[in-house]
């Protein structure tokens, strides 16, 4: 009896475009610029507008999360033949309980964050809602890595 074929081996797709941005914690003044820059690139590449909107919303929430909760992050945006993908790796306090952080309305935000129109506990659920694939890993006192993507088809 041969072993069943392994179906979940995913061939790494060719990266057609990639750009990395740095996001700084507490930098509210520039909060939104990375999402705006990535949106411009996607427009130039002729990506479908509904895909651009979904990824841009996820990116903006992700960027604001870094500004609100982390020290800094590397935000890598890639275009592959079948998807647009983001890997955002931050250095910071991390998330002790991811299950709680994924619940809508759960938040540890400060008044300053709320004054900017964020910090209502919708960030991570909003990223997940706008992604076709979403993964989160976090180590308290080390940092959090988010990986999410939107399919092009």
């Amino acid at each position, binding site marked *: 009896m041969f072993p069943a074929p392994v179906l979940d081996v995913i061939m790494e797709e060719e990266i057609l475009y990639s750009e990395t941005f740095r996001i700084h914690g507490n930098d509210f003044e520039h909060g*939104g610029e990375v999402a705006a820059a990535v949106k411009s690139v996607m427009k130039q590449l002729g990506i479908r507008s509904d895909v651009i909107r979904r990824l841009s919303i996820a990116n903006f929430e992700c960027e*604001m999360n870094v500004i609100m909760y982390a020290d800094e992050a590397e935000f890598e945006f890639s275009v592959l033949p079948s998807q647009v993908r983001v890997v955002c790796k931050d250095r910071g306090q991390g998330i002790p309980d991811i299950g709680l952080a994924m619940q809508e309305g759960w938040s540890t935000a400060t008044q300053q964050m709320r004054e900017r*129109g964020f910090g209502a506990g919708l960030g991570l659920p909003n990223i997940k809602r706008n992604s076709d694939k979403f993964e989160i890993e976090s180590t308290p006192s080390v940092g959090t890595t988010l990986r999410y993507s939107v399919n092009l088809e």
Partner: protein
Amino acid sequence: MRLSEIQKLLNCELISDALSSDPDIEQCFAADLMSDVLAYSTSEAILITGLSSIQSVHTADVADLRAIIFVHDKRPGPQVVELARNKKIPLLTTKLNLFDACGVLHGKGLKGA
């Protein structure tokens, strides 16, 4: 309804440059919480808000909203106006509060986005 008509109904002052286009608006979304706008709005609506920070313009940009109307006569800083100009998002301000501004537009047939 044209944006210029909305401007008249709410007695708005235009903060950014003159309207380069006068889009037809069918839907509005009103919130101070930008995460709500990002989660629940639909594209091509206008945003009515009391939040005049730069994040309101970034929100309108990523969510493909057509214009922002600030309530309570709020006026964003020059950096915010500059960004809106670059993104071609008209900014307007009305003396009305959020409830009344929404009420006027709802009464004229605009729908919630």
